[in-house]
């Protein structure tokens, strides 16, 4: 534990967490980058004179910084920067929404398994273990092969392969919190099981859930890029960071800029969320904090 925490005049737990988070410079940088990316994805497209799906067949393969197209144009003469910003919008949305679905499913499964324990808990947690046996990309692609590709399916499928870690975290927390005085007191008040689970126990496990959720956004963005790159995610003409790389390999020799920009944005986004998750873990869980 660092001296800063002790020297402070009785910091509240949240102040301590905030201070620890601020010390984590990489996490701060991550938060900043995420903010820039979100703003760029939300408002950037309105600032550009080009539409992301506008095809200008006379200006195919314009290299970056040549004329009006800052990042150049692709094989159909579409503006790469406009596609990049729309793609980031799609990919970040999929990342966030998939995270929310996965977190909710994970919380429900974990809370039931941890609260009831016994057979219910064992069956639910073995299900978690079993799904974790499938390598994520294999499961994701197999599921994608059975469905119509698109924004909604991609989001749901990614959530379907990402809820297990949250479930594990919540199960462990709920199982240990269940025996604590406040939970027993709630039971004595006559609260229903559902109320104890979701109003008393889960809120007390919020810190590890937030960390798992943040890391899940990183994973979801990465998985979207894999799925769309392989052609089973977001379908053209809509752009996503992954499907922009779909054709990039063919034009690698003649137009390498098509591959570079989307890859850098994906890496930047995923790294930022990972650093943010790491920083949150250090900030929210003082026991794990190594000064």
């Amino acid at each position: 534990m660092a001296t800063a925490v002790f020297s402070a005049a009785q910091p509240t737990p949240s102040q301590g967490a905030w201070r620890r988070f601020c010390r984590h410079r990489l996490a701060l940088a991550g938060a900043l980058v995420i903010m820039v990316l979100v703003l760029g994805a939300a408002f950037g497209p309105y600032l550009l004179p080009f539409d992301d799906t506008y095809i200008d067949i006379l200006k195919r393969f314009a290299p970056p910084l040549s004329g009006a197209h800052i990042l150049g144009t692709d094989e159909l003469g579409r503006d790469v920067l406009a596609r990049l910003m729309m793609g980031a919008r799609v990919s970040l949305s999929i990342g966030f929404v998939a995270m929310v679905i996965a977190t909710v499913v994970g919380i429900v499964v974990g809370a039931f398994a941890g609260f009831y324990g016994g057979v219910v808990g064992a069956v639910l947690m073995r299900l978690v273990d079993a799904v974790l046996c499938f390598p994520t990309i294999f499961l994701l692609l197999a599921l994608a092969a059975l469905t119509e590709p698109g924004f909604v399916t991609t989001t749901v499928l990614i959530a379907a392969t990402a809820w297990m870690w949250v479930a594990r975290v919540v199960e462990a927390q709920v199982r240990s919190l269940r025996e604590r005085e406040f939970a027993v007191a709630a039971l004595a008040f006559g609260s229903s099981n559902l109320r104890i689970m979701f109003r008393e126990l889960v809120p007390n496990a919020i810190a590890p859930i937030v960390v798992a959720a943040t890391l899940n956004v990183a994973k979801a963005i990465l998985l979207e890029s894999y799925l769309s790159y392989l052609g089973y995610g977001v379908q053209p003409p809509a752009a996503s960071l992954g499907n922009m790389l779909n054709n990039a390999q063919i034009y690698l020799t003649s137009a390498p800029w098509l591959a570079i920009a989307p890859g850098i944005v994906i890496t930047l986004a995923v790294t930022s969320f990972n650093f943010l998750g790491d920083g949150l873990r250090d900030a929210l869980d003082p026991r794990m904090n190594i000064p």
Partner: protein
Amino acid sequence: MARYVVNRLAQAIMLLVIVSAIGFALLHLAPGGPLSQFAASGQMTQEDLDRVTRQLGLDRPLPVQYLDWFGRMLKGDWGKSYRDGEAVLSVISSHLGATLELMATATITAVLLGCWIGILGALRRYSLFDSLATVGAMIALSIPTFWFGLVTIYVFSVKLGWLPAGNRHTIGDGSFLDLLHHLIAPAMVLALVETAMWGRFMRSSMLEVINQDYIRTARAKGMPEWRILTVHALRNALLPMITVAGLQFPTLLGGALVTETVFTWPGMGRLFLDSIGYRDYPVVMGILMFSAIMVLIGSLIADMLYAVVDPRIRVG
């Protein structure tokens, strides 16, 4: 020990049952279910379809069908590929070698490099090297594997012309050196994520060990530092790496799939994608089950090995 082994085996068998149930459910979710091949051809009447349904026993209750299917899986009958009628298991095994080759090369590289980085980072904690390694590992874990593959191809094949851009052999050249030449780039790409993971785990394991009392005791006895590190610290810090190897396995398989796609490496991952493209569901489901079973066996072996080398596990 015997009790631990029996417990762990029972757990693995239970997991296998659930895993196979998931696989069975997916097979029935396929458009047209197990009959999709016949339904897709469009030349069969509803009457024919009904007849095939009865012949294949698909009109029986689902649990009976599942037991039947599970029994056939255990006997090695995994169905036939829609594409050429070859048995699924033999299709998989003919592609397995290339994948294992790639995974083994990447793993050896990653273990050596990752452990070295992790140990050095732990010993010189908060040094410039450690900070760079920590940030580097996080970035490596965040780079999409396929994109790193594209960058590698661009730099080493397109620009420098040092390495081939894909495939396992130059046509007409079956020599070992040629294979090695083709192996470098994909193995390097696959090893990146693995190295980062091994480095992170090794660092934290080493940090945990060097703060233990027995290390302090060894120092107090005046034991030379290199001896403390190699004999006392390293031996204990390497133990949990067995578990890491088991945990890594699904990521490694997934990474191999993506790497094989970028480098047109003729392994299981490529076969999987091709089969999805052809809607060859028996092969798709076969590979999915096969990979899950590999993961299951991998983690079982890792746990057993860990119990052998670390007696604390067997009791606890």
